[in-house]
């Protein structure tokens, strides 16, 4: 087994000099007087016009790669070994003037939060024009070219946007402006670091399409950094997988994701529901152990401690990059066996016995919530009718402004709903304010929040955090409390020794387990899960999801599962409700809603979300932005963007009622269901 020499590996551009050539790169940070290597022996190339994806979880070092390429490492970081070449020149050896030149003309970056990337005190137009001024153009000409560039990124009224300040733009528009700034310099290399993570699904799809189009037009090489495998699969020709600072696998994107050749990649892909996988089909697999702490210097393969097939040679010396096919490498001695990686978690799963549709455990009727008053009223929820059946998981899907968070909080009594709203628990009315609910009512309804850093009091110990609901809700004390505490800790798969720790000493996954233990301490009947895994790494998400399903079966609880991740929602939910601008667009059994026929908004949403399993050829592109809830469109609120809007004008004038189009399947749309079936070509092969 000889090591591959990366410079001999063929590059996608077939022989010409690659735009980016990174060889044996080491980056070290100095933390508290100790050196910690964030990148270890990383080598890759990006050819001209090629799109290269760098994927990894937290601590993988992917952002550090971008920082090193633009020589923007923080003060305590340095390149400790290896070389970087961009267009043949070495950014690390340049003087300041040459470096500015490199940044101005050769390399551009787009980051995650577009609103913050723009100077809040300078007009947008001026900021884009600045790029042209650096290139030597005069003030007036620069402004003209800036306007042209804004038009190119599909901003419909560029002249008006030029005069705006960044805070006046929506997320999608701001990111387009940032992309305009980046491409104005016509760089050879465009680096994108999580550019769409902060955007809604439909907006994200637009921005990604834009990047793909512009990349072709400008023939720019792209380095796309993300933790989202599906986005990388959609956007990139080749991909490199980073784990704990090492590039453990590399190759054409499609091949790596379909036939991975490294145990980590295999494990990672199994954590994600693929090809419409549902919980009935079995548990998601997980990767054992934890992500290594930054700075650990293992003797052998960096993944060995967590690898189920690790052998002695794996632990003795770090594996080199073996060539495993056309343009592919893998840093694994046993890469041939990677595909047959044994599962870490047993497949079989106990699904809770659902449900008694006649007597819903929670009923919401005409639930509305308006914020503000008079002229500035924002209607976050409008007349929502919903019921939760015992033992089911209802998935709640929607983009920003859909009202899904408001719904959850109103249900829990944290936000008072408008007059006339009805919230029923087991047939009896619930006080709209949590402060007026009885202890039993509080026990019945609990929540797992999205962000455990915010949801757990950072000054309390784990023991205290879990004991609190045990004593307040379950009324336990003394020995019985301690017993139940031990039970709970075991059921969320934590250890006793972690009880004395504070949240800041725990990893994200562990914190969320504490939050789940708190939610289940009182023996609830309904648990609202508000994006419970969105803040966690992919490999940790699967374990938490499995835990949630197990607990549901054991405790016979009903879930209201809120998420923007359609794959997860499809995996977990029995029924799905789709929200748009505070109104339910569609609600029905999960498979039916996904397979179709479905509401045009659901259709657009599904087609917008990138999938690991290949793209649908007929992408529905939604025009415009999500309307503001303070000024919703007349009639059907979706009509301003609906690609299937009726020409009769009905959609603009009348709001369609939520009516049953099939048993258990309700939709709010003027188009008859048969017509939709034909239009959406349901039942035909995609």
């Amino acid at each position, binding site marked *: 087994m000889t090591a591959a020499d990366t410079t001999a590996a063929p590059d996608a551009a077939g022989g010409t000099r690659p735009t980016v050539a990174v060889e044996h790169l080491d980056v070290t940070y100095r933390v508290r007087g100790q050196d910690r290597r964030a990148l270890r022996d990383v080598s890759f190339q990006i050819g001209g016009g090629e799109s290269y994806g760098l994927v990894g979880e937290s601590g993988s070092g992917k952002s550090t790669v971008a920082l090193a390429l633009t020589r923007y*490492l*923080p003060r305590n970081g340095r390149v400790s070994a290896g070389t970087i070449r961009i267009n043949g020149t070495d950014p690390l050896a340049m003087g300041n003037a040459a470096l500015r030149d490199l940044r101005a003309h050769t390399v551009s970056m787009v980051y995650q939060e577009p609103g913050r990337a723009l100077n809040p005190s300078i007009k947008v137009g001026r900021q884009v024009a600045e790029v042209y001024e650096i290139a030597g153009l005069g003030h007036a000409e620069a402004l003209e070219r800036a306007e042209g560039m804004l038009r190119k990124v599909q901003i419909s009224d560029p002249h008006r946007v030029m005069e705006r300040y960044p805070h006046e733009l929506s997320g999608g528009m701001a990111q387009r402006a940032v992309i305009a700034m980046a491409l104005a310099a016509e760089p050879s290399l465009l680096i994108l670091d999580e550019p769409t993570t902060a955007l809604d699904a439909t907006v994200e799809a637009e921005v990604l399409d834009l990047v793909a189009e512009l990349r072709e037009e400008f023939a720019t090489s792209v380095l796309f950094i993300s933790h989202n495998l599906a986005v990388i699969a959609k956007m990139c020709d080749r991909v490199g997988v980073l784990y704990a600072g090492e590039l453990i696998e590399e190759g054409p994107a499609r091949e790596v994701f379909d036939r991975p050749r490294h145990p980590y990649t295999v494990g990672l892909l199994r954590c994600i529901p693929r090809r419409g996988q549902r919980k009935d089909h079995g548990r998601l697999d997980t990767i054992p152990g934890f992500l290594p702490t930054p700075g650990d210097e293992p003797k052998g393969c960096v993944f060995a401690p967590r690898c189920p097939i690790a052998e002695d040679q794996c632990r003795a010396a770090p594996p080199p990059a073996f060539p495993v096919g056309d343009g592919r490498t893998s840093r694994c001695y046993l890469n041939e066996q990677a595909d047959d990686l044994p599962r870490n978690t047993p497949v079989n799963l106990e699904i809770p016995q659902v449900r008694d549709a006649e007597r819903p455990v929670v009923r919401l009727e005409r639930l509305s919530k308006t914020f503000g008053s008079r002229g500035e009223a924002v209607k976050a929820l409008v007349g929502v009718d919903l019921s939760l059946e015992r033992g089911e998981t209802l998935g709640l899907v929607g983009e920003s402004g859909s009202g899904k968070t408001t719904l959850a909080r109103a249900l829990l009594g944290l936000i008072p709903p408008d007059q006339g709203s009805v919230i029923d628990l087991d047939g009896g009315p619930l006080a709209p304010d949590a402060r007026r609910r009885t202890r039993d009512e509080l026990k019945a309804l609990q929540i797992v929040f999205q962000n455990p850093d915010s949801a757990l009091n950072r000054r309390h110990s784990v023991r205290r955090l879990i004991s609190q609901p045990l004593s307040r809700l379950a009324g336990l004390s003394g020995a019985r409390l301690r017993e139940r505490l031990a039970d709970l800790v075991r059921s969320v798969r934590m250890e006793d020794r972690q009880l004395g720790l504070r949240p800041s000493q725990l990893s994200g996954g562990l914190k969320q387990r504490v939050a789940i233990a708190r939610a289940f301490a009182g023996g609830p009947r309904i648990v609202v899960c508000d994006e419970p895994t969105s803040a966690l790494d992919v490999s940790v998400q699967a374990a938490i999801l499995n835990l949630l399903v197990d607990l549901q079966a054991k405790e016979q609880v009903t879930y209201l599962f809120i998420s923007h991740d359609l794959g997860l929602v499809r995996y977990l939910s029995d029924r799905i409700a789709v929200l748009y601008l505070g109104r339910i667009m569609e609600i029905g059994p999960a498979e039916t809603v996904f397979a179709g026929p479905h509401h045009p908004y659901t259709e657009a949403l599904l087609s917008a979300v990138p999938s690991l399993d290949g793209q649908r050829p007929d992408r529905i592109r939604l025009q415009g932005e999500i309307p503001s809830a303070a000024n919703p469109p007349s009639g059907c609120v979706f009509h301003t963007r609906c690609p299937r809007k009726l020409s009769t004008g009905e959609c603009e004038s009348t709001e369609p009622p939520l009516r049953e189009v099939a048993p258990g399947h309700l939709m709010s749309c003027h188009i008859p269901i048969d017509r939709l079936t034909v239009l959406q070509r349901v039942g035909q092969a995609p």
Partner: protein
Amino acid sequence: MSGVDLGSTTPAEAPEVTAAHAAMRRAMPPWRLLLRRPTFLAGAAILLFWVVCAIFGTLIAPHSPTAQQLLATNSPPSAAHWFGTDQLGRDVLSRVIVGSREILLIAVAATILGTLLGTALGLVMGYFGGVFDILIGRVVEAVLALPVAIVAFLFIVALGPSTVTLIVVIGLVFTPLIARTVRSAVLVESQLDYLSSARLLGEKPARIMAIEVLPNVLPVVLVEFTVRIGYAVFTVATLSFLGFGVQPPTPDWGADIAANYGVLPAGYWWETLFPALAIASLVVAVNLVTDSIEQVLSS
């Protein structure tokens, strides 16, 4: 090959490192970190010196601070009197040493009072918000329209200076200032979900404020406390200088300066300079300590 520092337009830390950094910092308790800072040690040492003087002053001082020697008035520093004597022939060194007592006593007591009241007020204003907050806020604004020293000054004029009055007035005057800071901190906490969690457990507001919110704003309170001690020393000294603080014959730095600055043009500098330097050293020491605590707690 090393990366190049491009001056301060580069960020302090990369995202991956922040987590590790945080882990390392958690390992060392705050007081250990404090002891490693030279500014803290310097400040604490001076502070300790004055505290010792305050407690044991009468034992340390070479002469009685109130003993007048009318034959040896205004004599410059010498072997017998290291800091010279004042207009009444009293030993300046002794007065400086013993003068630390009143000022420290009043400053610390007033600050404790103000912190307790201010924290309670800030918690309630920040947690409940609404009309209550707006109303009290307006009154606080009106009171704060006048500089702290002047307000204190006016009250003392009205009530007459005595140790208790000084403590109560200064403490009350500090209350709205501290309340304002605590309120801001509470508002930040109220954005977080753990308060919603507590509400969902049926916790009552008083318990939530005391058990959930207070531990999280305690660092802010601690910093405010140490900062205010500095200002309390400042205020007591100023009031004494203006004649409304500590009353003669009790030795006090500010009062001594007020009594003796008239003869400054005549060249008798030691009578005012040494008390002035004493005040300056105490204030600087408190600030060094405060600065260090702030630095350690904010990281």
